[in-house]
């Protein structure tokens, strides 16, 4: 076993952490015992930072200070239209940041999206450290294949703030394919990954041969996911209500959060049921009529109708990518479904229709991505595996040229790492600087593409126009991250390039955020009293666990279910307090648990004596 490394699926709604242990990829359960951690961060009224299930649970009562789906804001520019649309749906307050980026207001503090994501990552890191009993500093983090350079950088920054060295950013569908192909026979096959997560959609075609995973083409939509399906249900519920009572529930943050929960629940249930009832009592109140309740029925057919365009958008992306990969749908060896939203029967039906086959069943849609990331980590750091990933860049990279046009320098679906160069010539006499605008996208007009940054070439030699040739080199790393350097071709000197941050955090801001996160973590660790209680709690949990089989038998033989249920309730309260680090409350719970344990042991002895 070499260095510890974890794989993290940092999702829009949920996150998962995994590692390769003794050659087997394994999901790391979090400290509350679950394999999935909601990507939710909240500031409780007492100023405490809550992450995961705890944050999610209190979202209804604290919607303004609960951050959900922050992934949709990662690496986005405040002025972009898509950003403004995404903000409309957020119950928390999003404001403009200093670099045309977005910031989230929580109480007096403002946080950038990477800082919020870092809180989720820190939580997962602590879970992993509890699992290994040792510090963990290295991670592979996944992002949607369709993420552009700024979104990838934002993800990397989040890792750094959480004190993790991000050894690689890999694409979610590729990662899922790694998990699928791990340990499989060395044969040659072609697979497609259909990845519809909480916030993004990706479709990727891969070719596997002797442990090499070659991505042939990838495409997607970074603003299409399960949340959009939920939003349709929210509209379906709130629109008739608005017409009847004149109140738009979507404007009431608390009501919106309840609607959101109800919509998600209904959506999930409709994957197995044909019809569900939605009941939201006391959702609002009016002065004349008093309290108002929301009651509705939603059928699977209705849901399919109102989301038909979303499903269609997915299928269009599939067809386009298949064309780019020059593959016929029916020719693929397997289709993998990844992401919770692929549980929707309609999507499975459409996938079956397009590919003419059943999707692969041996892939867990929630866990495959994290498992694949942990495999990639092991591939890089421990060279036991004879595997290699050849991924591609999802967007073309180029520069703005005269006339508002876009000149491609690296085409999309090019295998990374890759580099290309372009020679610039001065256009004026004694020109000493030149501005180069780097863009990502497919449009021929530069304004329609995503601006990555503007680079100033400075300190050029003073010479007549056309006499200075500058070779500008564009690199895309294996992470899909872009870097630029320049050389004066006549003198061979490297030019200094200054990057004006177009979105996201500056180096200083990242360092500062990482320091304050580190302080927070130290604060969590310092309390020796809490450490004692934690150890005692874990000891108690283990004792209950070993006793449990005997207790269940005893319950059938006269002891009854009631003491077991009480013990279970007390245990889950204590687990919660432990995770929430409520030291004093935990002490009380522990005393109660100890009393219960004694009483139960006594009861067991008595029943054995009697038998």
């Amino acid at each position: 076993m070499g260095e510890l490394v974890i794989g993290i699926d940092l999702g829009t709604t949920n996150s998962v952490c995994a590692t390769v242990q003794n050659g087997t990829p394994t999901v790391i359960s979090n400290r509350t015992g679950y394999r999935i951690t909601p990507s939710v961060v909240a500031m409780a009224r007492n100023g405490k930072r809550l992450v995961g299930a705890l944050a999610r649970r209190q979202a209804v009562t604290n919607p303004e200070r609960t951050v959900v789906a922050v992934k949709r804001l990662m690496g986005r520019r405040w002025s972009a239209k898509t950003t403004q649309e995404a903000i409309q749906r957020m119950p928390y307050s999003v404001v403009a940041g200093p670099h045309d980026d977005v910031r989230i207001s929580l109480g007096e503090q403002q946080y950038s999206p990477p800082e919020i994501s870092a809180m989720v990552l820190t939580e997962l890191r602590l879970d992993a450290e509890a699992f290994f009993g040792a510090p963990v500093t290295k991670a592979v983090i996944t992002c949607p294949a369709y993420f552009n350079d700024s979104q990838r950088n934002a993800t990397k920054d989040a890792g750094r703030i959480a004190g993790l060295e991000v050894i690689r950013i890999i694409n979610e569908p590729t990662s899922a394919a790694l998990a699928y192909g791990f340990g499989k026979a060395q044969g040659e096959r072609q697979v497609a990954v259909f990845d519809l997560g909480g916030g993004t959609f990706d479709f990727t075609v891969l070719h596997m041969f002797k442990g090499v995973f070659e991505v042939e083409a990838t495409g997607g939509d970074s603003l299409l996911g399960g949340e959009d399906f939920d939003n349709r249900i929210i509209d379906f519920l709130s629109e008739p209500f608005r017409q009847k009572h004149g109140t738009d529930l979507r404007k009431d943050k608390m009501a919106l959060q309840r609607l959101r929960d109800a919509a998600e629940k209904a959506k999930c249930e409709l994957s197995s049921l044909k019809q569900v009832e939605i009941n939201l009592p006391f959702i609002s109140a009016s002065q004349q009529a008093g309290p108002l309740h929301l009651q509705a029925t939603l059928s699977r057919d209705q849901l399919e109708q109102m989301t038909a365009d979303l499903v269609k958008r997915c299928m269009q992306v599939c067809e386009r990518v298949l064309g780019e990969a020059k593959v016929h749908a029916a020719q693929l060896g397997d289709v993998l479904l990844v992401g919770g939203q692929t549980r929707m029967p309609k999507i499975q039906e459409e996938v079956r229709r397009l590919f003419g086959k059943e999707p692969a069943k041996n892939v867990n849609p929630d866990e495959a991505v994290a498992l694949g990331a942990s495999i990639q980590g092991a591939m890089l750091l421990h060279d036991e595996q004879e595997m290699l990933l050849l991924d591609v860049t999802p967007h073309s990279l180029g520069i703005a040229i005269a006339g508002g046009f876009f000149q491609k320098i690296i085409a999309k679906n090019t295998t990374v790492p890759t580099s290309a160069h372009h020679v610039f010539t001065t256009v004026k006499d004694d020109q000493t600087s030149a501005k180069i605008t780097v863009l990502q996208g497919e449009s021929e007009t530069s304004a329609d593409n995503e601006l990555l940054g503007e680079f100033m070439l400075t300190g050029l030699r003073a010479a007549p126009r056309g006499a200075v040739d500058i070779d500008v080199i564009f690199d895309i790393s294996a992470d899909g991250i872009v870097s630029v350097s320049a050389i004066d071709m006549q003198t061979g000197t490297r030019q200094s390039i200054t990057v004006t941050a177009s979105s996201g955090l500056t180096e200083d801001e990242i360092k500062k955020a990482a320091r304050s996160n580190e302080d927070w973590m130290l604060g969590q660790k310092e309390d020796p009293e809490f450490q004692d209680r934690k150890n005692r709690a874990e000891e108690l949990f283990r004792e209950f666990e070993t006793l449990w089989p005997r207790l269940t038998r005893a319950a059938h033989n006269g002891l009854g279910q009631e003491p077991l249920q009480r013990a279970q309730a007390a245990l889950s309260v204590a687990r919660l307090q432990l995770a929430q680090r409520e030291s004093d409350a935990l002490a009380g719970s522990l005393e109660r648990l100890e009393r219960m344990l004694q009483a139960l042991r006594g009861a067991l002895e008595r029943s054995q004596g009697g038998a």
Partner: protein
Amino acid sequence: MQNELQQLEARGDRLTHYELLGVSADADGGTIRRAYLEKSKRFHPDAWYRKETGRFGPLLSKWFQRLSSAYQILSDEESRAAYDSDHRTELSQTDRAALDRRELSRAEEERRGRERRERMLRTKGFARIGAARKLYEEGQEYALNGERTQAIFALKAARELDPNRKEIVTKLVELEREQARARANSALASGREREERRRFAEAITAYAAAFQNDPGSFAAAMGAARCAMESSDARAATIWASRAVELNPEDAGARMMLSRLFLSAGMKARARTELGALLSKNPDHKEAKALLRTL
């Protein structure tokens, strides 16, 4: 590995794509891909992640990129054909022989395909629909194997048999577009390569081919204009520069070139119009101002 890298370095640019991938020049698509994937396993930077590679590190990444661009070119029928004809003289004796074999067997296959299609085209009555479907499926199969030209032939025959079948026409249009695009791209690339080697006449031919396949290609028009200027063919240069200006009226470089050409041909009025248009968009363009003053 170090020896291998040093050998590669020693051969440098003389190494053909086939030699680099370690396949013979008549290898099929599948063989080329498998060779690339196997080689990647050793050359990809990830295979050497966090290992001491010293001065070999940059070489590894350079040769991995050479490898993947070689694969990119050889994996498309059109760009591979262009590569073969451009680099025929650089291929080894055995590879040239292999190339001839491949061309022969392709010609043979094409001949057989053509005869088959002709036979099928003679089908009468309702059977024509069935024959069309067969040819359509054959076309799909060819397209999947990367044999676009054969696919297009099959689909054209299918269309003749059953002109009302929409999917045949759609697939055909798609393939023809793809073919034109691939041809334009490879012609543009070979134009640039020739221009760099200052073989201007050949470069103009390549740029013209690129323009013919993609009439919206500003880069092809500009390239041809540049090369025509270099080989002092003012007439051709004027035609190409006008096309470039038409395609991208706001490009200062194209307008500047065109005004100079008009001026040297003595067409002062037209030169003045061009310069006026240029300056209305870029009022600070020094060159244009200077040229206008001399007029």
